[in-house]
């Protein structure tokens, strides 16, 4: 597609009910051209749509789509900083991923940029919006925050208790992980994918493996499909349980915090017994699984946990002081959620009933029936209830998958397809995770683009903070269930 045709094609796609999922750029011929690609999802069970255009390497320009499609704003800024494509007419032309003061000699994702070259950096002030008024106070919070939390800075402009504007500065943890994949063998890239977001190791490695399998046209064995489903749901389980522990911490429900974190610990220990890793790492590989798993003790271990989980979740729903802090807190309207790119439980709590497991099934999700919980309230309590139902659904899915799992091999051979490209996806505990991989002629990874759910939801979250109050901030943030590592990469 020619660059000038992209805006029209995007318009047509949106009118037909499509929703943009992400955008990225890569260098098929370094020094000669750069390609920009937009990924969109249309109706459930319909294939994903790519809009792609090639630009000349010297001063590449493209019309910004962010005014029509706000959720693309961050992707375009990221492409601008890491791949050197300028977007004309961008509504927020400020640095995003690379902080003020970072001056790489050339766009870091250009393959000609040396993999071990640290970019020059001088400390420069942060370009944040001026807010005027005698009574307006400012509060910089972070990047080193209270407790054991990931690094991020939240800048509040407030009057008394009321927050006027909340301006997060993220990407303190930008490690340049997408660059790290360059030149790596596809079989080893899975180890990197597991480290993008440590608590979403399965979501990331599964999306990565599926992208490689798509690029190589590889079908994985039936048993591997079921085992992957079990692993993905175990990951959702421990993440959601931890989520409730942390949420109770913010509403100061102490016993609820202890119980939620204890259940998350027990869930992690089950992961350890089953796979050797509390984070379910070192088990997936392109083509299937690295080794077979013995599921015989899993149902019994989960059966012991289930009544405790049920009692715990019900007790929270019957505690007025806890509910009082959640209901109407951090309201996210449907239209905002849709336009700004909300994903996962956050999106489903605002009335968008989409889930990759049901809409674009992978692993064994098309062999197992499941409910996708949806709420329309859009507040913290709705986000909480979605996760409660998902916990029950996960336990049911694991039990059924463990019962139905067929015998057989757990991996198939990956034929090395040089020059292949593929898309993989996974609905992780936090939402949609996408991997786009491009292989070079030697069969090594040329470009891996990662779309993590927290990147999407961090864009949405501040919109629910403006015009609220300070006391609700921590509760609202906890109700979103965000990570920094996945967002910053």
């Amino acid at each position, binding site marked *: 597609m020619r660059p000038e045709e992209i805006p029209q094609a995007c318009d047509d796609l949106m009118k037909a009910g499509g929703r943009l999922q992400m955008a990225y750029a890569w260098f098929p011929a370094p020094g000669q051209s750069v390609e920009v690609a937009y990924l969109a999802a249309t109706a459930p069970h319909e294939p994903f749509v790519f809009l792609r255009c090639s630009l000349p390497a010297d001063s590449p320009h493209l019309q910004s789509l962010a005014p029509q499609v706000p959720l693309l704003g961050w992707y375009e800024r990221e492409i601008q900083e890491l791949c050197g494509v300028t977007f004309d007419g961008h509504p927020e032309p400020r640095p995003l991923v*690379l902080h003020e003061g*970072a001056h790489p000699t050339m766009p*870091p994702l250009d393959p000609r*940029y040396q*993999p*071990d070259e*640290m*970019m020059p950096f001088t400390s420069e002030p942060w370009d944040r919006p001026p807010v005027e008024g005698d009574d307006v106070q400012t509060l910089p919070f972070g*990047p*080193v925050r*209270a*407790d*054991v*939390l*990931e*690094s991020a800075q939240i800048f509040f402009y407030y009057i008394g208790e009321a927050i006027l504007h909340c301006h997060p500065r993220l*990407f*303190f*943890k*930008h*490690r*340049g992980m997408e660059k790290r994949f360059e030149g*790596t063998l596809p079989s*080893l890239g899975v*180890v*990197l994918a*597991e*480290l993008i*977001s*440590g*608590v979403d*190791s399965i979501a990331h490695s599964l999306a990565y493996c599926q992208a490689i399998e798509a690029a190589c046209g590889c079908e994985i064995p039936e048993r591997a499909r079921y085992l992957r489903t079990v692993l993905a749901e175990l990951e959702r389980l421990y993440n959601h349980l*931890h989520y409730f*522990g942390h949420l109770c911490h913010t509403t100061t*429900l*102490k*016993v609820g915090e*202890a*119980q939620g*974190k*204890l259940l*998350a*610990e*027990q869930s*992690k220990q089950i992961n*350890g*017994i*089953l796979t*050797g*890793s*509390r*984070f379910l790492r*070192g088990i997936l590989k392109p083509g299937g699984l*690295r080794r077979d798993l013995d599921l015989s003790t899993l149902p019994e271990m989960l059966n012991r946990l289930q009544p405790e989980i049920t009692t715990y979740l019900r*007790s929270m729903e*019957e*505690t*007025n002081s806890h509910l009082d802090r959640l209901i109407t807190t951090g309201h996210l309207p449907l239209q905002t959620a849709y336009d700004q790119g909300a994903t996962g439980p956050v999106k489903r709590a605002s009335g968008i009933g989409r889930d990759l497991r049901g809409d674009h099934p992978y692993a064994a999700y098309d062999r197992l029936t499941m409910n996708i919980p949806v709420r329309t309230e859009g507040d913290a309590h709705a986000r909480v209830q979605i996760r409660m139902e998902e916990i029950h659904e996960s336990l049911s899915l694991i039990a059924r998958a463990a019962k139905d799992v067929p015998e057989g091999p757990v991996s198939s051979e990956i034929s090395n397809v040089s020059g292949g490209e593929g898309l993989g996806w996974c609905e992780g505990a936090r939402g949609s995770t996408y991997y786009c991989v491009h292989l070079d002629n030697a069969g090594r990874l040329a470009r891996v683009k990662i779309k993590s759910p927290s990147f999407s939801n961090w864009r949405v979250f501040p919109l629910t903070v403006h015009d609220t109050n300070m006391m609700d901030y921590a509760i609202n943030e906890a109700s979103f269930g965000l990570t*920094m*590592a996945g967002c910053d990469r």
Partner: protein
Amino acid sequence: MPVWTLYGIRRGIATTSWPEKEGPTQPGVLGLPHYHADRCQDNCRACADVCLPGALSFESCEAEERLALDYGKCIGCQLCTEACPNDALTKSNDWAFGVRNRDDLIWTEALQSPPAEEVTRKIQKYFGRSLHVRHVDAGSCNGCESELQALNNPYYNLHRLGIFFTPSPRFADLLLVTGPVTYAMQGPLRETYNAMPEPRWVMAMGACAVSGGASGGGYSCGHGVEEFLPVDIYVPGCPPNPAAMIHALLLLLNRASQHVQGGQVAH
């Protein structure tokens, strides 16, 4: 409405008896691989070829090449144990690996490294019974944070050992750093350290903080905390098991002994 106090009492005690009493706290969890030098065949290189963080490499030694293994870089992905045709590298359940000397994470033929020095008697005197920790995330994958948060859950219950996380560096005795130190976190990390009163200690937690691990280097990352601050305790692992974290904190306080020297676990 539930009475949470009764709920908690009914739930009973969930805390592990470790480390007061011995016993496995994490059945099945794989740790860092064991190296059996006698089984290693020359010039095979299968292990080094699959080692992404470069924990396994070959170095020249008296006209022959031999395998060098650095647990400070190992992320425990177990790929080498699957690649080795001779079982020279095998899976293990070892996790208690906190060391005072970075060299003790590098495998050596004999246990030739000098016995680790006592950090200082001051620690025992002033902090032997209590320690306040300020954590700084300098670009981790969130795996280390997840396990650090687990230390305060009822199972590990870190408070019972007199160790607390503190919000302010002004009240902290120990700076606990995770992540390879990204360019953007260099400043905040230094400022946090400078805000701490002396005497103060630094702990590098996880393969990233010890050596950069699999994410160190590149256009935006350093190769661990050592490049920026003096490190007193190194805890490898990706992420270290919560029990290994507790062991390392007790090691700092001279309340536990070092389990590893010359890259080998003393049994």
